[in-house]
């Protein structure tokens, strides 16, 4: 009993600190995020139970194919991946047909006489973009390099603007809820973040104002338009709007960057279940063993 009292006091102090710093920091944090137009989005694959939404990945691929491939490649994803479980799961035949009708050819291989050739891609080939190398891409794009999008969602994040006294609380909250979608939130914010530059901000020639991009000047022209969204099939599962296009293509790119997410989270729950049950059993064993002693 004597040892329990200080423990209670510490717990009460921690709780008090928690509630005070959350209360103080919540308004500040919201203001900060709305300023940068980067808000956390409700992804189906978010948190520790989230999984990809098959129809969304398929719509996302459509947006990627019709818009992004004009400049970007997806070289770490192979055509066969589009038919594999955990992804958009297109029928294999459709993916085969897609590969051979892809607008860009695989280059750099040699024919039997040793001459370099271009050929149509197959299921095992990467989803290539229009440019053979970075130099060619820069030459075609006024010196700007459209990056490969295979990992773009993992390679971006939302910076936390929480002040020091609540920073650690948000961190704990993110760990407890399994928040790891900062990259997707950023990509969505970027795709929907094109605006007229605010008064007093000068945008250089060939650049576009984007609220989400660091520095706000981006060489990529707005890829999606509010007045002419991509045409979705009637059975696609969602009405096409600019925001929906951005959301779908971001989900598709999230899958491209992390194709094992569905399997990872499913296995995670099995492992956790095993660990929790074993821990309980071990605890009972330990109590039984120590029960022989006074302690």
């Amino acid at each position, binding site marked *: 009993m004597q040892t329990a009292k200080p423990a209670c006091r510490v717990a009460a102090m921690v709780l008090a600190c928690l509630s005070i710093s959350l209360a103080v920091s919540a308004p500040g944090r919201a203001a900060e995020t709305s300023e940068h137009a980067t808000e956390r989005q409700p992804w189906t694959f978010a*948190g*520790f139970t989230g999984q990809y939404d098959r129809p969304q990945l398929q719509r996302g691929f459509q947006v990627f194919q019709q818009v992004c491939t004009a400049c970007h490649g997806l070289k*770490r994803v192979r055509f066969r*991946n589009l038919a594999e479980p955990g992804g958009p799961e297109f029928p294999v035949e459709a993916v085969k047909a897609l590969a051979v009708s892809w607008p860009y050819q695989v280059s750099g291989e040699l024919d039997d006489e040793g001459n370099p050739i271009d050929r149509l891609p197959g299921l095992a080939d990467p989803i290539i973009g229009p440019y053979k190398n970075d130099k060619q891409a820069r030459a075609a794009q006024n010196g700007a390099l459209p990056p490969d999008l*295979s*990992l773009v969602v*993992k*390679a*971006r*994040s939302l910076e936390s603007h929480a002040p*020091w006294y609540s*920073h*650690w609380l948000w961190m704990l909250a*993110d*760990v407890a809820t*399994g928040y*790891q979608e*900062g*990259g997707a939130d950023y990509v969505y914010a970027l795709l929907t973040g094109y605006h007229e530059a605010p008064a007093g901000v000068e945008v250089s020639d060939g650049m576009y104002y984007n609220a989400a991009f*660091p520095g706000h000047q981006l060489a990529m022209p707005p890829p999606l338009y509010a007045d002419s969204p991509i045409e979705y099939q009637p059975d696609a599962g969602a009405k096409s709007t600019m925001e929906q296009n951005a959301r779908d293509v971001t989900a598709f790119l999230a899958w491209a*960057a992390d*194709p*094992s997410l569905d399997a*990872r*989270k499913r*296995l*995670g*729950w099995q*492992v*956790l279940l095993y*660990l*929790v049950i*074993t*821990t309980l059993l*071990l*605890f009972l*064993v*330990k109590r039984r*063993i*120590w029960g022989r*002693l*006074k*302690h």
Partner: protein
Amino acid sequence: MALHESSYEPKSGIAKWMDERLPVGRLMHTQFVDFPTPRNLNYLWTFGGILTFFLMAQIVTGIVLAMHYQPSADGAFDSIERIRRDVNFGWLIRNLHAVGASMFFLAAYVHIFRGLYYGSYKAPREVLWIIGVLIFIVMMATAFMGYSLPWGQMSFWAVTVITNLFSSLDSIFKGLGTTIVEWLWGGYAVTGATLNRFYSLHYLLPFVIAGLVGLHLWALHIVGQNSPTGLDVKTKSDAVPMHPYATSKDAVGMFLFLILFAWFAFFLPDYLGHADNYIPANPLVTPPHIVPEWYFLPYYAILRAIPSKLFGVIAMFSSIGILMFVPWLDTARVRSTKYRPVYKWFFWLFVLTCLALGYLGSKPPEGAYVLWARIFTFYYFAHFLIVMPLVGWLETPKKVPGSITEAVLGPAGAQGAAAATKKA
């Protein structure tokens, strides 16, 4: 130890034959079954076992990763993506290894702070403690080199920044720093040659750690375990055999920690890393904020808190090196902080200082962050150099129980136990 008699009796013919030639079974039985452990150990004492587990787990997952990894500037990043995407369960092994490194450090920090709180470094455990500090230093070198292997932007620039620190030695002896840096790099810049040697050392050092862990355990089993009261095992009733008592408690502690490990490995595998490391290394583009992994952030804050590069480097290395001298800096008459009413406050201030330095290490070195980093850096060193000697000298400790048995059973129970021992 005198109290410690082996109950080992080889049963089978083979075991008897072996026992007369190389008594490995006897050694294991004596040291890990009969070994007397204090009966009052709390769950903080389970972290030694947890750390041993993580060393083995890192070696196993690392060996599998090494089968698929290509240590070259051109191939490293792509080979890790192949592991994530094309190797069967490659994503799992890679997450376990990357998250495992973080968990290894988390467990090491708990283990170190436990040692500091309960005075586990005080005589006769000085050598045990120093070997522990050496393990920690080799661990840091291993982790640093391991972080370079994915050859992403953060890998490349962390290597560039940290290896460049040695160039500050030029201001002591002209050319010394440059020579060391070029020797580390294997050239005039961070290149694939640097990656290759880091990979080689990253594979070697874990086995050095394993050797040091052997010495750490040896020293531990010579002097015996410290306990929450800071008292040693003196009589039979102070101790319980390691198996099944300590082992059953260790198993619970380890599985609780594995739940945390699984949580990160399966649901937050990239939370502890940095997004920039998913961009392939590019020597021509510097990331806006170069930050190390979370477990190095306090030292990074100390490095940047000092205005001079040379003294910043010296401070950073001293912040770890100073741990070696803790057994002699602490002048207290009792071991455990439990019985030190004044030092207790300073201990928690020191924990807060380390957390604050970690936070400041993740922030850009500007404005108020620099000032606070300097204040906390000052306290970090003051804790060891001023607080430990002075408080230990001036403070009147609370009354420590006469023995572990008395701490657990009270004075009456201790007398009963002593009588029982005499009768037996």
